Every structure is written in structure tokens, then in C-alpha cells.
């Protein structure tokens, strides 16, 4: 029996109106990989932030090696051997790898020495890094390495990983798992937060399940099925989407050699992207983030106009039209960034509903807003998509990520688009809500619309797409039927395997 590393005893954290954590207790053993499972808003993030010293608990205490442990700030936690890799990386794009690592260390050695150490440690754990490269030039997987190496350089005893695989290719996930297993064999405990149940099943030794801020169950993942763990997590069964017959109709969206230079210095320009999206079709576009996904969405939504002929909607050239005209014609888009792009953070839900649906839902008359009609539409979204919010007067910012995402998708779906483009529709959304969103998108296609799903979640794409393409370095592979493709094949295409891409 290994020794107990961290014991959490009755931790509680209350926010106005919410119990983020309620009397949470569990223990983490040395050298074990411990999973923390739960839906969005179950209190996982708050809990690990307390362990890392970013948030202070209102009640309860913690023991590290049997001694009282209550860090007041992250640097204290780091000094005591607790490191954390964030879901949203705490990295600085305009700084290089070494500078980013220095910022996360208490007493960094001189630069030359540090650079050597970075190379040594990163190679030792199979995560090679060049200390002098700018973060902005790195892929998402490489950025995560920087975070991990930053923690490793401080010889942690406990490494907290918050949703580490949500943006990785399958190959990168394998590398990460190897690294984590090596660490655990060296005695480092890992607290692994995820809602990807298959991963937890293959990786973790123990799991603690949180729901509504409380520990509802514990289990040994290897002895459970993904489904049984999901049920512990959400406290009930959730509907898996049904298999749908795919009979494509006429072409609705036609891209012809769509080329668009990226305005973001770290972005990727689109080069000769061509595709035909037909009525009733759900097309999945896979690819590692930063390969032109944002640019593709901007070109389709109309935020970045192109040559008129590059984008055609039902045969009409719309490439040079703005978003409002495109919306009127039936091409709708839901971008990835929920706060600030898909929704205005400080405006209420009803105002946000109005912003996107004004034209299609006829929410104005002679230049005046029809308030009643607008509110009805906002309410319809909230009801049909099970958006959990006290009222439609609440600011978009006040909703949890998953709820806001349901609102954003619902808002577009209910406008009955001809073509709907979504980027990362279920990013950071819990399993039940994600299933609802996918179901809604498929239903939309079943009713005759065409849906383009840009996502980095391969399982999601495989589950919902009829056809499948990969966006790599701004180029789109030829779409193929999704049936019969293996995740490995796609992973190789995404990771930039040239041979595969040439064949694709």
C-alpha cells in the first residue's frame, strides 16, 4: 500500500447563490493517477483551484504528507510540490518557451542553464521543446508540453491536469499518456480532470465523481464502463444520438478555391479551399486548432469578405456579402469563442438573441424593435434547448460555458438556416449537453438544411458527420464519407502526415 499524499477533508466553497463545493473529501495516493469526474459546473475547477491556492475554501482543510496544507497563492503550492496544467493554457504568445517557463518558476536558474534543463527534461519525458521558440508559433500540443515541462522542472509530487486532452490529436494524447504513466511510475501523483470517460478508463487508477459540488461516488475506472461512469456523473441515463439515413439533396453551399489571408500574425491563411455541402448533409471538418478553422468560419460568416464567386449559397455568389445579408439568405454561423464573438458578454440573453435573429425572425418593424417578439424568441431558445438561466434578462457572461453554448447553438438552429456553420459546438460542454447539441444539429440536417461542423473532437465528428474532411495548414482535404474511417487514419491526416494528406 502506497502512502497518502494529499488528503482533502470536507472542503466547501460558497459563491453567492451557488455551492461550488460542498463538503468534498477524498485522498490521493503517491504515484497514482486519480481522476476527478464531473459535468460542467460540477465544481471540479473550483476544487483544483483550492488545491493550487488560487481560491480559498470557506470550510474544511487539506493535509499534504500528513501535515496541514492550505496554500494562499500558487507560488506556495508550487513550493510544496503541487503543479498544475491549466485547461486554458496560462501561456504568453509573444514570449518564448524559456521566458514562459521562468514565469512559472520561483527561483529560475540563469538562462543558459535553464535552456539546458528544459531540453534535458523535455526529452527525458518524450516532450521535446526548443526553449527559444515563440509560443505563438507552437501547436496546441506543443504549448501543453511547455506547461507540463514548466511543472516538471520544479519536481512536483502532485501534478494537476485540467482537461488536458481536449485539444490534442490522438497521437498527441498517446504521447501525453506515456508521459503521465512514466511520471506516476516515478512516484508523482496526478490529479486528472476530464469528462472523456474512455481516457479515464485506460489511464486512471481511481476516480472521484462530483455532481453539483458534492462527491457522489468513487470507483476504479478499469472496472467500470464508460456508460456506467457517465451515469454516475449525470445521475441518470442520457440519450445517445440515433443513426440516421444519409440521402444528400441538392448542393446548398459551394466553396470554390476559397483563399483568405489571415489577419492574425499567428493564424493560418486559407489556400484554395473547395467543397460542396448538400441538403441533409452534416460535414465534419477536423484539424488541430490554428490550421485555419477560425479563418474558415470568418470567411463563411461574412466577417471577412472574399471574391464573390468563392462562396456560393444555392447558386448565388455571396463571397463579397456581409454577415447580415448572408443571414437573410440563410447562411448562419456560430463561432467558437462564446464570450465576445458568438455572444456579447455583458448583454442579456434577449439582446443577444436579437443581435443574431433580427433579420430572419423579423424582430423589427419600421426601425423599431418588437420587444414582445424578441422576448418570445429568446424564451423559445431557453426552453427548447434547456438553457439553465434564471431569466432571459441575465447577461450572457453569467451563464456557464455549457449553457451559453446551448443558447448560441439554439439561437441559430431555431432560425431555420439553409446552411449552418458551427466551430467547436461542444467545446468544454458536458456530455449530456453535448449530446443534445449534436442531436439538434443532426435534426436540422434531417429537415433539409446543410450543416458544417468544425471541431477538434474526433469522436464527436465521427459520431455526427456524414462526410468528413481535414483542414491542415489552411488546406482542406477532399471530403469523404465518414463511414469506415478509423480514428487513427484521421489522426495521421490531422497531425500533418504529408503522405496521407496528399492521398486525401
Amino acid at each position, binding site marked *: 500500500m502506497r502512502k497518502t499524499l494529499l488528503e482533502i477533508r470536507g472542503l466547501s466553497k460558497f459563491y453567492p447563490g451557488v455551492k461550488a463545493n460542498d463538503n468534498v473529501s477524498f485522498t490521493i495516493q503517491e504515484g497514482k493517477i486519480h481522476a476527478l469526474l464531473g459535468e460542467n459546473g460540477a465544481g471540479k475547477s473550483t476544487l483544483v483551484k483550492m488545491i493550487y*491556492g488560487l481560491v480559498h475554501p470557506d470550510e474544511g482543510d487539506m493535509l499534504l504528507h500528513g501535515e496541514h496544507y492550505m496554500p494562499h497563492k500558487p*507560488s506556495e503550492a508550487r513550493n510544496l510540490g503541487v503543479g498544475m496544467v491549466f485547461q486554458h*493554457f*496560462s501561456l*504568453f*504568445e509573444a*514570449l518564448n518557451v524559456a521566458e514562459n517557463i521562468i514565469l512559472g518558476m520561483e527561483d*529560475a536558474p540563469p538562462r543558459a542553464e535553464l535552456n539546458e534543463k528544459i531540453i534535458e527534461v523535455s526529452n527525458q519525458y518524450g516532450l521535446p521543446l526548443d526553449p527559444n521558440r515563440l509560443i505563438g508559433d507552437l501547436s496546441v500540443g506543443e504549448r501543453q508540453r511547455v506547461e507540463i515541462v514548466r511543472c516538471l522542472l520544479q519536481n512536483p509530487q502532485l501534478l494537476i491536469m485540467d482537461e488536458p486532452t481536449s485539444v490534442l490529436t490522438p497521437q498527441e494524447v498517446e504521447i501525453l499518456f506515456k508521459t503521465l504513466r512514466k511520471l506516476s511510475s516515478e512516484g508523482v501523483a496526478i490529479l486528472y480532470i476530464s469528462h472523456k470517460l474512455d481516457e479515464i478508463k485506460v489511464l486512471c487508477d481511481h476516480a472521484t465523481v462530483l455532481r453539483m459540488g458534492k462527491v457522489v461516488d468513487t470507483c476504479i475506472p478499469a472496472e467500470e464502463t464508460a456508460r456506467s461512469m457517465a451515469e454516475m456523473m449525470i445521475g441518470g441515463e442520457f440519450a445517445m444520438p440515433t443513426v440516421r439515413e444519409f440521402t444528400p439533396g441538392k448542393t446548398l453551399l459551394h466553396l470554390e478555391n476559397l483563399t483568405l489571408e489571415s*489577419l*492574425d500574425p499567428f493564424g493560418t491563411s486559407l489556400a484554395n479551399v473547395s467543397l460542396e455541402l448538400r441538403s441533409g448533409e452534416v460535414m465534419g471538418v477536423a484539424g488541430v486548432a490554428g490550421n485555419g478553422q477560425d479563418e474558415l468560419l470568418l470567411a463563411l460568416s461574412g466577417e471577412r469578405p472574399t471574391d464573390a464567386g468563392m462562396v456560393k449559397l444555392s447558386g448565388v455568389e455571396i463571397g463579397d456579402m456581409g454577415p447580415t445579408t448572408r443571414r437573410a439568405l440563410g447562411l448562419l454561423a456560430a463561432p467558437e469563442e462564446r464570450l465576445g464573438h458568438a455572444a456579447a458578454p455583458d448583454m442579456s440573453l434577449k439582446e443577444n438573441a436579437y443581435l443574431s435573429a433580427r433579420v430572419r425572425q423579423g424582430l423589427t418593424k419600421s426601425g423599431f424593435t418588437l420587444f414582445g417578439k424578441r422576448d418570445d424568441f429568446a424564451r423559445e431558445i431557453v426552453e427548447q434547448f434547456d438553457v439553465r438561466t434564471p431569466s432571459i434578462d441575465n447577461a450572457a457572461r453569467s451563464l456557464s460555458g455549457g449553457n451559453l453554448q446551448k443558447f448560441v447553438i439554439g439561437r441559430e438552429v431555431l432560425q431555420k438556416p439553409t446552411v449552418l456553420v458551427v466551430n467547436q459546438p461542444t467545446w468544454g460542454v458536458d456530455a449530456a449537453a453535448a449530446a443534445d447539441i449534436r442531436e439538434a444539429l443532426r435534426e436540422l440536417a434531417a429537415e433539409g438544411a446543410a450543416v458544417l461542423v468544425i471541431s477538434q473532437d474526433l469522436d464527436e465528428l465521427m459520431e455526427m458527420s456524414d462526410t468528413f474532411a481535414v483542414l491542415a495548414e489552411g488546406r482542406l482535404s477532399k471530403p469523404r464519407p465518414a463511414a469506415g474511417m478509423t480514428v487513427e487514419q484521421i489522426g495521421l491526416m490531422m497531425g500533418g502526415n504529408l503522405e496521407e494528406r496528399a492521398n486525401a
Partner: protein
Amino acid sequence: MDFSALNPVSLMVSLMIAATPVLLAAVGELVVEKSGVLNLGVEGMMIIGAIAGFAISVETSNPWIGMLAAMVAGAVLALIFGFITQFLLSNQVATGLALTLFGLGMAALLGQSYTGMKPPSTPHLDIPVLSDLPVVGPILFSHDPMIYMSIALVAGVWYFLNRTRGGLILRAVGENHDAAHSLGYNVVMIRMGAIAFGGACAGLGGAYLSLVRVPQWTEGMTAGAGWIALAIVVFASWKPWRLILGAYLFGGVTILQLNLQALGIGISAAYLSMTPYLITIIVMVIMSADRRRASINAPASLGRIFNASH
């Protein structure tokens, strides 16, 4: 027209004097912007510095105490801006503009009884022997200490930003304040420090104007120098050394314009007075034409409100 009346050496010397107030204010603002804060109140802080420095120098008959007072006054005004934007989370652009208007009005009020007075003179630092060299002597080795200090300050800021841990943290805060916060850095206090430094530099720049360059107190005497300082920070694409280039270019055009007026060129003085500002706009348009390059150097969190609660 007799261009031989233009003596290149004395032109060079007066160019440096004209450029120094702008350079001082710009180097302060550069640090502020590197920390992710956009303080448009430079003009207001400069003029408060100008009157505070002038008044205290007159009262104490010591220009150095006056300059110190100008730095304190500029920093205090900046901290008001800091409190409103960092703690009360107000909009930085609006608050900065208000600060400028407030500073101009406040300075006019404080300065009423000082109009037309003569401040104590600031001694020159003539470096023996070297300052007697022809051409090079007057240009490089015979200035008031503040000119050397302004250059040293630029060098110091460059060293701080690029070679020290403190500078790295400051840049990190300006680049991504959420990430800096999650690593445990106190974003608000780091920014308050930068804002105070920026205010002190702007105040010193203002005092240089009223004590050395003019030297006299006149209402509204900064005449847009604070705005030029802001422009020069962008012109320099947030790189300290380029501030010198920008400030001296601006100073050069100002001086040339004054001399051309003195020569009696047949162009209206109004047009000539416009040229430094015009040149600044033109240069900035050229500089920012290449969006990719400019946006890499710009601090990514510039002007964004930081709210630690999420």
C-alpha cells in the same frame, strides 16, 4: 532666403532639447502600455508636472526639487487614473481622456499667479575638455543633465524590460493578464506600479518643458506634446530604443519648422506649426500599414479590463 543662417550644430542642440520632454513622457507611457494599460492622460500629467515643477522651483529656488515635485505630481495624477481603471474597472480610454482635461484645467488654475515669472536656471553639465571639441562638443558633451538622464532612462527601461525578471513579469501581465493571474502574479499591483512610473516620467517631461526648454509658465504650454508621446510609443512599436528615434525626429521637425519661420519663408506659420504633427501621422500610417508586424509587438492585453473574479 539665406539658409546659411541655419547652423547645423545649434540646430542639433536645440533638437535634443525639443525632443527631451516628449522622450521622457514616451518612455513612461511605453512601460505603462507594456503592462497592458492604455493611459491617454499623458498630456494632463505632463502639464501638471510642468506647473508643479515650475511652482516648486520658484518657491524653493531649486530646479531639482521642482523636478522631483513634478514627478510626484505626475505620479499622483496617474494613480488617480490607476485607481479608477484598475479597482473600479472603468474604461481606460474615457478615463485617460478625462485625466487630460482635468490636468489641463487644474494646471491652469494652479498656475495663475506664476504666469510671466522666471524660474531658477538649470545648470549645464559641461564635460571638461570634451565639451570644447568642435561640433561634437556642443552636440554630445554640453547639455543639461536631464538630457543625459532621459537617454539613461531609455537604456534603463530597455534593460529592465528585456533583461530582468521584473520586466518579464511586466511584459507577461501586458501580454495575457489572465494567464499571469493564474500563475499567481498580482496583475493590479504590477499595473499600478507601471502607471505611477508612467505618471512620474510624464511629470518630469512637463517640468523639463517649463524649467529648461521654454523656460516659463504659460497656460496650455504642453501644446499636444503628450499626444505626440503617445504616438511615438506606437511609432516605436513598443521598443525603447526606437523612442529616441521617434522623439528626435519629432524634435527635429519642430526645430526646423521654427527656424524656417524665423527665416521668413513665404509659407504661413500655421502650416509650419502643423508639420511635426503631420509628420507623426504620416509616419504612423506607414508604420502600421504592415499589420502583422505591428500587432506582434503590441501588448495583447492593451486596454483590456482585468477582472480577477473569473
